[in-house]
């Protein structure tokens, strides 16, 4: 990964944390100052989707051409994506406790997000339960496609079809609630870009670890022969 990209991401994240805390936000009832949670909570989900789609892409590449490299990349992106998703659920719970009255409100958006995270957790359970490397890679690549296809409706479609209280759901798609203010976009979108890059960066470290591990195993194999 290029160094300038990392520095750009750091700049964006600093901008997020300064702008997210200090810039003007719309004054809304009930949410009050917690509207700022948008800046920190929403990029987690966007980042998760970005990383899961990269994982899906690599899974498809693996199915087209079974190289171990694709499998390693698919696993790493899914892993970091899941971490982002868990952070998204936790930050959402803190906000829900303040705004909705309880951390777990059983809102369709919350339930959908939790199920989506469980679906991706099962991806790692599946990987852990198959011994054979090629079989593991092939099975998990196929499962990856199903997991992605389940995640999108669970998080983005079902909450909009039912009466979710989550901002942007339940009949008002997008950021309608915040449309009063395009100022918020000025922080939210750079923040999302910053987290995209940092998520990719962390995944690239995981990929490095995995490749080093495999090389080490190869070396050991050669010396033992």
């Amino acid at each position: 990964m290029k160094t300038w990209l990392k520095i750009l991401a750091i700049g964006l994240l600093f901008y997020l944390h300064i702008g997210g805390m200090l810039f003007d936000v719309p004054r809304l009832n009930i949410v009050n100052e917690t509207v700022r949670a948008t800046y920190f909570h929403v990029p987690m989900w966007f980042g998760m989707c970005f990383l899961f789609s990269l994982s899906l892409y690599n899974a498809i590449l693996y199915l087209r051409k079974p190289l171990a490299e694709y499998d390693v990349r698919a696993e790493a992106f899914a892993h970091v994506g899941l971490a982002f998703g868990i952070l998204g659920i936790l930050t959402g719970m803190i906000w829900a406790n303040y705004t909705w009255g309880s951390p777990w409100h059983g809102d369709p958006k919350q339930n959908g997000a939790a199920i989506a995270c469980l679906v991706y957790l099962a991806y790692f359970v599946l990987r852990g339960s198959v011994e054979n490397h090629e079989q593991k890679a092939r099975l998990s690549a196929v499962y990856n496609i199903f997991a992605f296809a389940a995640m999108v409706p669970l998080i983005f479609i079902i909450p909009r079809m039912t009466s979710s209280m989550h901002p942007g759901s339940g009949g008002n798609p997008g950021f309608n609630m915040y449309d009063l203010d395009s100022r918020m976009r000025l922080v939210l979108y750079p923040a999302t870009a910053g987290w995209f890059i940092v998520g990719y960066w962390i995944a690239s470290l995981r990929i490095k670890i995995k490749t080093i591990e495999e090389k080490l195993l190869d070396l050991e194999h050669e010396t033992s022969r």
Partner: protein
Amino acid sequence: MKHLVKYLAALLLLFCNAAIAQPEKVEMADVMRSEGKIYVVVAIILVVLAGLIAYLFLLDKKLSKMEKLLHERQQTKS
């Protein structure tokens, strides 16, 4: 007549009330902002962020070094 005046007065009051209530006061952390204490919080958050990112950088460097070392060893082997 008396009733009508009362009714009109009540209506007027109601409108006045609505007019006064129009610029709704939504409570925000304005005091914290005006006192400048929010900058303390921002500074703390930035320190944590900078620390974590520096850590990530060091981790990255270490892994790259390891990668290179392994590559060299592989080449000397073959």
